[in-house]
């Protein structure tokens, strides 16, 4: 007769680690935990050594009477249990000794110490072992309760890791480990990966909860169920974190705007911020901002500022910049400021070395995320900070004409900062109309860069040739060809216009190339 479907597939037995997470074993003292997580297929109340000699493998043995009288009897019981491949041994606290723990460790057999009456304990365990499904449901419910108490991602991962111990648990986004143990994603022979996606309400994949279980483990379903319990709390924690960060970012944005506005209205600025004669405004201090002393600002922006960000893109970028910034310069303030982000250093004296170190730290972040930065001059007080910010912003605009990752100093640029404000793309449009033939030529880049180098160097062909790294005759030939294609650069009344157009075209093409070192050396020289 065919058995009913419900009984056709035997339930995977509980393991020792699963039992240890459930009452009554959740409350016992673990004198030693075996490195092997054995399945528990039965429970035996062993009151004699003769009975211990007959227990089937994978039995959890609860000792009593003669077998639980301590001293040598514990050693003998442990050895017999080990010989019978028992899943573990439970003893009373009066039987435990240091040598007993030591022997359990040597034999690597799980040794538990319980205060409860051994008969009651054995009966309770037998009930659990005979109904693994119920025990697992209880475990999942208990885990859900614990997760409900967690509000941070780290805490949620800790609960899951504790629940799935010794399996490693991690939260990953792509190849980036967000929380947990790297062992969960490391490919290890004999294991299989269990993944549970964590998606937002819009279906966007935020991250994945992963663990590694032994290959062929029968009960991966419970593991998946437990991981799945972590999805909602993780999303909630992530959303809460985003909310808090967004709130703080907005506060910083408004605060810095107030600072700028104060600078624009001297009566307001001087009292609370600059002079400090009366009570200073409290909000800079609450945000952790220091303004008294010599300030030097650094201003970050996208390397292609002419292309306005899409809706919400700037906010996303702000979140990203904030997150990354605090990993690089955790003690520096950062506030969104118009279409960029401002930070500054404050000290009793100017500290350009500190700013240089900060710039070096930021270089990788900037280049990876298409950002550039400008550094302003050093000025005292809040008003000085606002001025330094203006300088840094001007300088950053100049840096936008260079490659992503560029950091320029206002102290080195000076009036050349004006070049950063040229409408590069508009001028490119003008060139399309005025220099049609030249722009149609295949060698247009070489011709423009050559004309630009000659103009940058006051008409000196030999210096331009040295700058470009070509022969002087090559320069001559290119100038002649440019002239043939309509680029007349040696008439005084058009020289400024030609110089400006060449600069704009060279800058635009430099951005298009997306390669920092493609910037013509002559142009870089001009910028400096």
């Amino acid at each position, binding site marked *: 007769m065919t058995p009913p479907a419900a009984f056709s597939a035997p339930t995977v037995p509980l393991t020792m680690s699963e039992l240890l997470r459930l009452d009554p074993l959740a409350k016992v003292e673990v004198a030693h935990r075996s490195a092997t997580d054995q399945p528990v297929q039965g429970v035996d109340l062993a009151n004699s050594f003769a009975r211990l000699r007959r227990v089937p493998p994978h039995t959890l043995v609860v000792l009593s009477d003669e077998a639980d009288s*301590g001293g*040598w009897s514990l050693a003998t019981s442990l*050895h017999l249990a080990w010989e019978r491949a028992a899943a573990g041994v439970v003893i009373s606290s009066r039987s435990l*000794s240091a040598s007993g723990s030591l022997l359990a460790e040597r034999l690597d057999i799980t040794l538990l110490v319980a205060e409860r009456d051994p008969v009651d304990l054995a009966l309770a365990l037998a009930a659990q072992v005979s109904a693994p499904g119920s025990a697992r449901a209880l475990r999942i419910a208990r885990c859900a309760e614990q997760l409900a108490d967690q509000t941070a991602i780290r805490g949620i991962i800790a609960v899951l890791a504790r629940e799935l111990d010794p399996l490693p648990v991690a939260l990953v986004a792509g190849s980036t480990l967000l929380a947990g143990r790297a062992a969960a994603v490391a490919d290890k022979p004999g294991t299989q990966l269990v993944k549970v996606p964590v998606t937002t309400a819009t279906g966007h994949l935020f991250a994945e909860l992963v663990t590694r279980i032994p290959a062929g483990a029968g009960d991966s379903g419970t593991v998946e169920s437990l991981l799945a319990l972590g999805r909602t709390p993780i999303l909630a924690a992530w959303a809460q974190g985003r909310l808090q960060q967004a709130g703080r970012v907005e506060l910083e944005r408004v605060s810095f705007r107030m600072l700028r506005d104060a600078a624009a209205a001297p009566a307001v600025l001087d009292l609370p911020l600059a002079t400090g004669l009366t009570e200073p405004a409290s909000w800079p201090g609450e945000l952790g901002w220091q303004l008294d002393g010599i300030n030097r600002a650094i201003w970050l922006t996208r390397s292609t500022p002419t292309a306005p960000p899409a809706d919400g893109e700037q906010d996303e970028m702000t979140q990203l910049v904030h997150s990354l910034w605090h990993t690089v310069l955790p003690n520096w303030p950062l506030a969104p400021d118009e279409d960029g982000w401002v930070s500054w250093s404050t000290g009793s004296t100017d500290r350009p070395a500190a700013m240089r170190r900060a710039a070096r730290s930021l270089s990788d972040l900037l280049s990876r995320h298409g950002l550039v930065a400008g550094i302003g001059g050093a000025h005292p007080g809040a008003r000085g900070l606002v001025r330094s910010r203006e300088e840094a912003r001007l300088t950053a605009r100049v840096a936008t004409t260079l490659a992503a990752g560029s950091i320029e100093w206002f102290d080195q640029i000076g009036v050349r900062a004006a070049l950063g404000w040229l409408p590069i793309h508009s001028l490119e449009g003008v060139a399309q109309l005025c220099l049609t033939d030249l722009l149609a030529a295949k060698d247009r880049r070489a011709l423009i860069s050559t004309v630009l180098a000659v103009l940058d160097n006051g008409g000196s062909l030999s210096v331009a040739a040295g700058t470009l790294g070509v022969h002087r005759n090559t320069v001559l030939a290119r100038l002649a060809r440019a002239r043939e294609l309509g680029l007349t650069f040696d008439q005084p009344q058009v020289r400024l216009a030609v110089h400006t157009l060449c600069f704009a075209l060279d800058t635009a093409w430099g951005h298009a190339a997306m390669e920092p070192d493609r910037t013509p050396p002559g142009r870089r020289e001009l910028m400096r």
Partner: protein
Amino acid sequence: MSPSRPASGAQITAADVAALYAGANFYSPSVGDTTRVTLIDWLTGLLGETGPLPLLKPESMPATSWCAALCILGSGAALADLPPAGDEFVTAVRTLERTIDRPLAAVYPLAAATVSALFPVIAAAQLGLPLLDCDGMGRAFAQINQTTMFLAGLSVSPAVLTGAAGETFTLTSPNSERADVLSRSALDVLGGWAAFAAYPASIGDTARGASRGNVSRLLEVGRLLLEPMSTDLLVNRLSAVNATRRIARGRIVDLEHLTRPADLSVPTHPTSAVLDEVGGAILRLELRSEIVAAFVDGVLTAAAPDLISLFDVRSGRMAALDSLENGDLLDVLVTPADAVWYSPEGLALVGPSVHHIPLDHPRRR
């Protein structure tokens, strides 16, 4: 070999006393050093006066002559507190002779171990009797009925206890187990220890029941222990004399006291010494008045009636059980007992079950 070894091997001289003491120590590791100097001086002086004591094989004497077993009954500490007057054994033997109404032709140790290996020599020298080269235990058990003579059907009683105050207690009981209980109650009023003379029997019957050759074996072992030599060489030589084997070398990592309820039948408190064996195993020694069992990783590897003794590797001497300390590096030596002790009757009398260890003796598995 030691130059002090007697040429005939059939007598004990003053020069043998140190070896006698060392051998007595080997067969009972719980003996202390409290009475060592007094005893050695006393016996050496006595043998110097009386001359060499004949040590005879039982079969070399007339089988119809009678003999008795002698030992010190009671506590070694009490013996140190209340030293003997010197005539206790003479009084006990004379009283026993009167009780059985016949003279004794020889005496022998009830247990050729501890101070009970020395007092029969003193008594024999004082009485002018030869000492038989046999004993009833081959070591020291706790009860007077735990002897090979008892296994052979000889009776403990009539027996005589004589205390240091000259008081004498004569005991007659058809039941040897009861005789042990009765004699212990007498000990309390006699001062904690007593000279004990028992198992009066013909030498022929004694020769069939006692373990023969144990006194000369004890002397051989004592001489070995007195010779300076490496531990390994000593173990090899003990093996040749005694079939002794080393089951482990380890350092004491824990001493557990009162690990189990006291066994009422054996008047000692159980203690365990745990050794971390050099090879990595965990060795557990169960101590009473002797080491009654040794477990290696929880497996019963040796047990009473095996003689389990400890050799202190650093000092090169036998380790006394009452002076063990954490950190001691010890060799655990096991010497088999007389074969009769491994019979079912012998194990029932002195095997691990007597110490509430309900496991099969390793030799019976």
